[in-house]
Structure formats: C-alpha cells, structure tokens
C-alpha cells in the first residue's frame, strides 16, 4: 500500500520550541497532505503540497517535500499548548480516486506550557 509513515511516533516539547515531524511514503504521489486530530476526534486539514512543489508555508506551518527521497516534513514554529494533537500525513496516489488517501499512523505531539 501507499501508506505514509510518520516519525517520531511521539514528540514532547515546551511551548515556544519548534516541532518537526517527518513522513515517508513508498510510491508516486499527486500530493501529500497533513492533518491534525484532537483527542481521537475528526481530522482537520492543515496543508497540502503537490508533487511538483518543494516547500510550502501556512502561518506557523512549514512543509517540505522531497520526491526523490519520498519524504516530507512538517515544522510547527513557536509551538503552543493548543498545538497538542496527533498529526497525520496522507498521500494521494497518481491516478487515484479523489478521497482515497493513505494515512500514516501519526505523530502524537505534546506541548507543555
């Protein structure tokens, strides 16, 4: 399967520090997306990066994509306690049906006040 894999599985930092999460995948993609999940509830879309893009920013979020290494990273700068959540990468295969995303197991981020 095309399932992404996040690293680390868990990350614990202090407020104000930066948090970096990595994602690796296996085959060719249309795009890679990052989602956030609070306390096992619904997921919220954070950012999407296309296969022909290398870096993207949205507020305190910075995403990079290296298609040669089949990897992506999500950087959250100046983290806050409210950033505590699980973060998932998800990939869309080339030629895949819209809505069929392959999710990794997630990184559980804890930000201490």
């Amino acid at each position, binding site marked *: 399967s095309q399932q992404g894999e996040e690293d680390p599985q868990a990350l614990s930092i202090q407020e104000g520090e930066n948090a970096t999460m990595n994602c690796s995948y296996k085959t060719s993609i249309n795009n890679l997306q990052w989602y956030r999940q609070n306390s096992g509830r619904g997921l919220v879309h954070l950012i999407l990066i296309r296969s022909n893009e290398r870096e993207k920013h949205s507020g305190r979020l910075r995403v990079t994509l290296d298609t040669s290494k089949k990897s992506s990273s999500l950087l959250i700068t100046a983290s806050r306690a409210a950033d505590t959540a699980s973060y998932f990468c998800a990939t869309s295969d080339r030629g895949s*049906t*819209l809505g*069929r995303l392959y999710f*990794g197991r997630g990184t559980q981020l804890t930000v201490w006040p």
Partner: protein
Amino acid sequence: SAVISQKPSRDICQRGTSLTIQCQVDSQVTMMFWYRQQPGQSLTLIATANQGSEATYESGFVIDKFPISRPNLTFSTLTVSNMSPEDSSIYLCSVGGTNEKLFFGSGTQLSVL
C-alpha cells in the same frame, strides 16, 4: 469548506448487534467517504458512497459487514453489522473539498463488548 454532522459521537454495543452511523453535510456533494481508525492506528478507507449507485468498497471491506446508504446528496449512513470486539474503532465520514483536501466529521467512537 463543508460542515459535517456525524452521530452518534460514541456508543458502546454488545457483540452480535449492529450500529448505524449517520453523516449529514451542509452542502450537496457527489462523493462521501467512510474511514475507519483502529486504536492507535492510521485511517483506512472503507468505502466511497456515491448518490444513486452502489458504494465502492476497498479491499478487505464487504457490503454485508458495512452496508452503506446514500439516499441524497447531503446524507449517508454506514452500518457496522454483527459486531465483534475487533470492530471497536473510530468511524469517520468525510467529503472532498477544493484542491483535493478532505473535510471530516467529528467521528463515532465505537466500543464493542
């Protein structure tokens, strides 16, 4: 963006029984997607529900176990039939938005005793 109402938010059920999960969207959408998230795991697509046609199931999921209805463009149900403890998961409905991202409902946390 789309607002998705999903219910119930959680339930505890006895093995052998069935549970129907409802998903209501605030706008008309062609496709709705049902995902499962097993404890500590990633999300896996169960099926895609198109209005006016049979749902399309992913490998490992069958209609007898997870029957889906899609009576109109704003509503869908997923039934988890003849439940066993292995069905204990979070079930999420989602719809596609612009630029290939997904919007998710708040999820149904199912525990089977």
